[in-house]
């Protein structure tokens, strides 16, 4: 099996031949979301939020908010005319060297950054956003509904432009210790709009991958129930083995890497990385519903963007022990 065939064997609940890794299984596409959601290299986005480039990616400029009260969102939030953003041209450029043969080999994965909660926090800061969820849930729900309409329109554009197999939707809802908000608040305030976003993607025949960092295991079941087939960046502070056992062929765990552990420290050796990759393969990889995602930061930034000489030997070693 090639990468694509192996991936779809996992999706169809069949036995894959090997444990894939996210660096080799996907053609990841980011140009669309850099226009509609968050500029990767920093700058002002289509909503007027300024993003600053950091070593691990762009983030909203700290302490610069468009508004403080969610009840005021309509005065400050203006959705861009998607016809004017150049999404299709950017997608065409990103895919210009990706031909049909490549499509037969790899899985096309379109990223959609800055989901419902992250966008709210980008507008008004995390503290204000989190307080709003419990102090003014009605305004939050109204805001999320409008934002979901925008995201669905963006996703439809991405799907038309890229013809992807997977859409990975990013929304960080947790710290390393647990969810930012209670599961009840998530379910009552965010989930209804989140659900519409998931269903709009899956109704187009595209696999929905949910990205949430941190310890979010309490709502992974909600993701599965809504139709997500992949949970991305599934980090090791969650009970990954229990989740794999529980959801079996309904959910692929993409992650596993201990991003706070020694293999992610500055100065970790290639051998340390190989050991961590082997640990992931042994602990999570044997059930046929796991994709390794090495989250590696180095002195220059996120290795996904800046590269890292340790990755190649690590992947080589991983690919020698990843057969199932």
């Amino acid at each position, binding site marked *: 099996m090639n990468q694509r065939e192996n991936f779809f064997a996992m999706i169809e609940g069949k036995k894959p031949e090997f444990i894939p890794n996210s660096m080799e299984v996907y053609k990841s596409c980011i140009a669309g979301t850099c226009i509609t959601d968050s500029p990767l290299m920093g700058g002002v986005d289509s909503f007027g939020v300024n993003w*600053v480039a*950091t*070593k*691990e990616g762009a*983030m909203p400029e*700290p*302490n610069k908010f468009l508004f403080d009260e969610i009840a005021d969102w309509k005065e400050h939030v203006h959705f861009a005319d998607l016809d004017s953003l150049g999404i299709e041209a950017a997608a065409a450029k990103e895919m210009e060297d990706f031909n049909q043969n490549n499509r037969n080999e790899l899985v096309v994965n379109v990223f959609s950054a800055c989901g419902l909660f992250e966008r709210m926090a980008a507008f008004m800061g*995390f*503290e204000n956003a*989190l*307080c709003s*969820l*419990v*102090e003014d849930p009605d305004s939050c729900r109204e805001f999320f509904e409008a934002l979901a309409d925008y995201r669905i329109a963006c996703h439809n554009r991405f799907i038309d432009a890229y013809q992807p197999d997977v859409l990975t939707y990013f929304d960080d809802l947790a*710290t*390393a*210790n*647990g*969810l*930012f*908000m*209670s599961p009840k*608040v998530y379910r009552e305030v965010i989930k209804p709009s989140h659900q519409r976003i998931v269903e709009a993607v899956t109704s187009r025949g595209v696999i929905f991958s949910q990205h949430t960092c941190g310890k979010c295991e309490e709502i992974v079941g909600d993701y599965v129930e809504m139709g997500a087939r992949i949970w991305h960046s599934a980090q090791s502070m969650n009970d990954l083995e229990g989740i794999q056992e529980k959801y079996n062929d309904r959910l692929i765990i993409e992650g596993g890497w201990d*991003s*706070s552990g020694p293999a*992610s*420290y*500055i100065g970790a050796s290639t051998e340390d990385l190989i050991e961590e990759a082997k640990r992931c393969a042994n602990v999570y990889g044997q059930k046929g519903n796991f994709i390794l995602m090495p989250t590696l*930061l*180095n*002195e220059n*930034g996120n290795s996904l963007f800046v590269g890292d000489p340790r990755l190649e030997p690590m992947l080589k070693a991983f690919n020698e022990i990843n057969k199932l």
Partner: protein
Amino acid sequence: MSKINEVKELVETGKSKKVGAAVQEAIDVGNKPADILQAMVDSMSVVGDKFSSGEIFVPEMLIAAKAMSKGVDVLRPLMAGDNSASLGTCVIGTVAGDLHDIGKNLVSMMIESAGFTMVDLGVDVPAENFVKAAKENDNVTLIACSGLLTTTMPALKEAVETIKASGLSGCKVIVGGAPVTPEFAAEIGADGYAADAGSAAVKAKELVK
């Protein structure tokens, strides 16, 4: 319910719009401002414990801290010059190379609620700026350094080493952040470590008493 208990309950449940009036009523019926302040500090201690145990989440902790702040606004003019309840000044910041402020802000709110005066240096703070702020401000008893990324763990180490080498006396250093462990905190010479905002407030009080 006594007025002071009403204040406590309003802080614990984050009713920031009602706390100011309740504090004023507690004063009007003869409660001492210092006792009302202590009641609110006690409430926040309960909130911190509930957060650390997973009983409540960040929003509930935030609105409680916001409610306490509203109550303190009413007390402040009455307590000018009265530092009897103060635990001193805490200088806080996210270390150099790291722009993450959520954890640092939460810790800042909880440490303030425990009775410290906060000097928040923001994010991406060079090691020497912690020392400078500690020297420039009165009665600094605690310096709190935060870092979210594994890549900024060396900056945490540098911050602690710089503070310790500066000759500052009478001030303790506490560190925290996602990749930080108690072992790492001890290894770099920090006086204390906390895993979350609730336990940071507890540890902060412990360190300066």
